[in-house]
């Protein structure tokens, strides 16, 4: 069996119908467990107080905002190289999920930053690259909506996705590249001294897996919707031709 079988819309829909209930339930459960655990059963941080509880939303959302863009990049490259419509539609389907994750990361970051840094916003390398990533998401979605021909839209959005990948990478590594600004480095690290305490990291891992599965469930569902919307257009075009 080849992975390219899933480039067939019918095969993709059949498989996603089978997988989605598992994804919905597991993502819902893990997000609920992670967030309840983090909100109700973790201690306050000795410096940040109870604001540390925002980490359970901020970090998974930021992680998914960046990873959603990388998933869109892979899907766009598959479209550019192999011309599989399902992959272009999967990239299109992922963008609104990615932009919501980016918005959550920006909003929770601003809310968290106000009491900790004394400001809602700073032109810090990571914050700025995240804002640019948000603007790229907006542009990507707008470009899909602005072009009638779906193949042309897929081509142009794929190029935009390639360009925007620079900012997805910068969003992740800006702290390391410039080593300045207000934003701290990675919260999770293999180095025990760098890593946050287990009391915080364990529910954080649960939230991260939950957000990842939620993203997958949304992308599967939304790709199915895009495939059906494309079929409606094709059927209507056929009807017009026959009439």
């Amino acid at each position, binding site marked *: 069996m080849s992975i390219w079988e899933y480039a067939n819309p019918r095969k993709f829909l059949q498989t996603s119908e089978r997988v989605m209930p598992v994804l919905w339930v597991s993502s819902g459960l893990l997000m609920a467990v992670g967030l309840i655990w983090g909100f109700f059963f973790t201690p306050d941080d000795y410096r940040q107080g*109870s604001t540390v509880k*925002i980490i359970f939303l901020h970090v998974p959302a930021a992680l998914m905002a960046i990873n959603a863009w990388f998933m869109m990049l892979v899907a766009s490259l598959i479209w550019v190289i192999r011309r599989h419509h399902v992959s272009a539609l999967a990239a299109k389907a992922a963008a*609104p999920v990615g932009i919501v994750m980016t918005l*959550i990361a920006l*909003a*929770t970051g601003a809310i968290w930053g106000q009491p900790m840094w004394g400001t809602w916003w700073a032109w810090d390398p990571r914050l700025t690259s995240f804002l640019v990533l948000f603007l790229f998401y907006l542009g990507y979605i707008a470009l899909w909506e602005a072009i009638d021909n779906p193949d042309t839209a897929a081509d142009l959005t794929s190029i935009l996705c390639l360009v925007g990948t620079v900012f997805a990478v910068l969003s992740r590594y800006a702290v390391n590249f410039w080593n300045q600004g207000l934003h701290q480095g990675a919260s999770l690290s293999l180095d025990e001294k760098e890593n946050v305490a287990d009391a915080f990291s364990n529910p954080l891992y649960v939230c991260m897996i939950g957000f990842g599965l939620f993203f997958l469930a949304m992308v599967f569902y939304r790709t199915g919707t895009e495939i059906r919307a494309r079929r*409606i257009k094709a059927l209507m075009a056929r009807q017009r031709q026959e009439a």
Partner: protein
Amino acid sequence: MLPDLGKYSETVLSAYAASLLLLALLVVLTLWRGRRVRRDMDTLEQRMRRDG
């Protein structure tokens, strides 16, 4: 029963409220559009089968 969030209660609660609201909005809009498109496609396919 909410945990004691101290002087940062507004900060923490507003971050959770904003995030959960955005996630709920995304889910509702996704399901709403998905159902509408599925219904439209079924209707169109039925009509085309009926009309031959």
